[in-house]
């Protein structure tokens, strides 16, 4: 499959800090990629570079073009939701639908109308009169109605309650994702996205720490709930992280033989959040 996004030596320096430090990655069509990193890791900078909102060094192409120079062309095929606050507060629901319909060549009004009709959003309301959840629903309705190739979501569910967050990702997966579109999402709430991701990318201090498909991650990393009497033995196998659980010690291994591990306890896949913590700690030391 062709690469939708390709970064080679992508760098961005703010003063003396390297927000992105010579990063290489590719994202191909039909993926749902989670870009996960601590605050200040460079994920927002990467997003901004992909959306053509910031200058960068190195090479980056989105849909075969330099996003910084061809921002308004690539925006025909790229959508983004930066976070819940960005819909203008003065605009009416009907107005924003009309405006996007008139200015976006790939907007399908019937899809938007259908989605909105399932919400409590009134057409005559102004955005400022809507609840946070409704604003996100409205934004999602607008974005889902655009037949785009790439959707970029930067903390799209920030400030929403758990029901809304779940609903957001469910709608996205069931009604939007069709196997051909590509979605790039950053969030701190890893648990809520991990089951929808096809690929995982960890970023820390401007560098990619992990870039793998979820299948590869499951194959490569294992989490072991160690039997109490086998802890010392388990340590000799070189876990990348050790965590004291309720009555049990959990260890995460990178590329250890399953057969060996299974003798020492129960083996499972680490959650993305646990893996993230393990790799970030490893990266720090």
């Amino acid at each position, binding site marked *: 499959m062709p690469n939708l996004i390709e970064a080679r030596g992508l760098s961005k320096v703010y003063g003396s800090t390297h927000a992105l430090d010579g990063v290489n990655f590719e994202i191909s069509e039909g993926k749902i990629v989670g870009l996960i990193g601590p605050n200040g890791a460079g994920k927002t900078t990467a997003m901004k570079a992909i959306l053509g*909102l910031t200058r960068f060094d190195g090479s980056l192409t989105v849909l075969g073009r330099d996003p910084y120079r061809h921002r308004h062309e690539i925006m025909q095929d790229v959508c983004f939701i930066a976070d819940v606050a*960005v819909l*203008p507060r003065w605009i*009416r629901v009907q107005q924003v639908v009309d405006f996007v319909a008139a200015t976006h060549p790939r907007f399908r009004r019937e899809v938007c109308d259908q989605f909105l009709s399932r919400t409590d959003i009134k057409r005559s309301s102004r955005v400022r009169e809507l609840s946070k959840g409704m604003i996100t629903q409205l934004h999602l309705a607008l974005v889902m109605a655009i037949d785009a190739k790439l959707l970029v979501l930067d903390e799209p569910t920030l400030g929403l309650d758990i029901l809304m967050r779940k609903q957001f990702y469910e709608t996205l997966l069931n009604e939007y994702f069709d196997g051909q579109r590509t979605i790039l999402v950053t969030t701190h709430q890893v648990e809520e996205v991990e089951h929808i991701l096809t690929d995982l990318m960890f970023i820390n201090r401007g560098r990619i720490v992990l870039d793998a498909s979820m299948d590869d991650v499951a194959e490569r990393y294992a989490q072991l709930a160690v039997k109490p009497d086998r802890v010392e033995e388990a340590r000799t196998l070189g876990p990348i992280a050790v965590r004291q659980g309720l009555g049990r010690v959990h260890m995460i291994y990178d590329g250890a033989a399953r057969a060996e591990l299974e003798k020492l306890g129960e083996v499972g896949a680490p959650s993305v959040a646990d893996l993230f913590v393990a790799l970030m700690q490893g990266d720090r030391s």
Partner: protein
Amino acid sequence: MNRFAWLVRREFWEHRAIWIAPLIVLAVMLVGAVTGNVFLGDVRVSADIGLDGKPTGESGLSEEDIAELSSIRGAEDLHKLERLEKLEKAASSGEMRVVSAGEALAMVSPEKRQSLLAIIYAAVAGLMFFVVGIIGFFYALDSLYADRRDRSVLFWKSLPLSDTETVLSKFFVAVVAIPAVAAVASIAGQLVMAAGGSIKLAFIGGPAGLMWMPQVLGGSAIGALALAIVCALWFAPLVAYLLLASAWAPKSPFLWAVLPPAAAAMLEEIAFGSSHVIGLIKYRTLAPIEAMFRADHAKEQAVRSMDIAGNVAELLASPGMVIGLVAAAALLAAAIWVRRYRDESI
């Protein structure tokens, strides 16, 4: 409707003051024309002599009397009130007597009535352009800043619209749509005055049809349109400058727009003791207004608003006009560049 038209339409959704403020002014004018002394208060004339200082006859109003009439018309202002008090004093001491509007009009010759009326209509346009002009000033200052302040800029930038289109749509609204609104509102205001004035004249027994002299109404309407064209062309560089400040300012575009020229003027004053910067600022902001007032004093008998059209035409043909348009293009390009390449934070 094409994309540009939608972009312009969006500006009217966001900045509702552009059309609400003229409606409010129109409403006030209507109420004022019917009920109050807004356009023609009681006129004070000397007891023994005529309106123009000559013995009474059919001579009508002098230039000073016309000025008096128009100043009395705006009697709501404080400093005008002081003038009124003085007039009041003169009236009570017997030097002057007060005549009603109807009486005053009856004393006035037809030509003078015409020019008096033209002044009223020109004042309507002047007031409307003043109000809409202030709205236009703050519109330009706010237009590329408001969406950065509430971060909706990221939503607009998520649509396949170029920053050039966006900035040009705002420039278009400020230099074409807003002056057009001012012209249309002025003409509406003149008609409102004519209608309201007719009602009032019916009550005080003034000459019927006075307000509807076609050459005066027509001339006033042409004057309003001419004023709109002058404002559009003359203020284009000012608008482009304000857009640049609006696109650039990290905070408070007003200060970013006002402080640099103010500082430059002050430095020039301190360093060289000259005032070229102040002169330039005055020229760029006040030239059309000066041109209008020059027109008022230049010729006596003709319909005033026609003079405005003629006199501001001179302004349009001046080299300053061409220089201004070149500057506008450069400033606009700078505003587009800043809007395009400003590093927006997510």
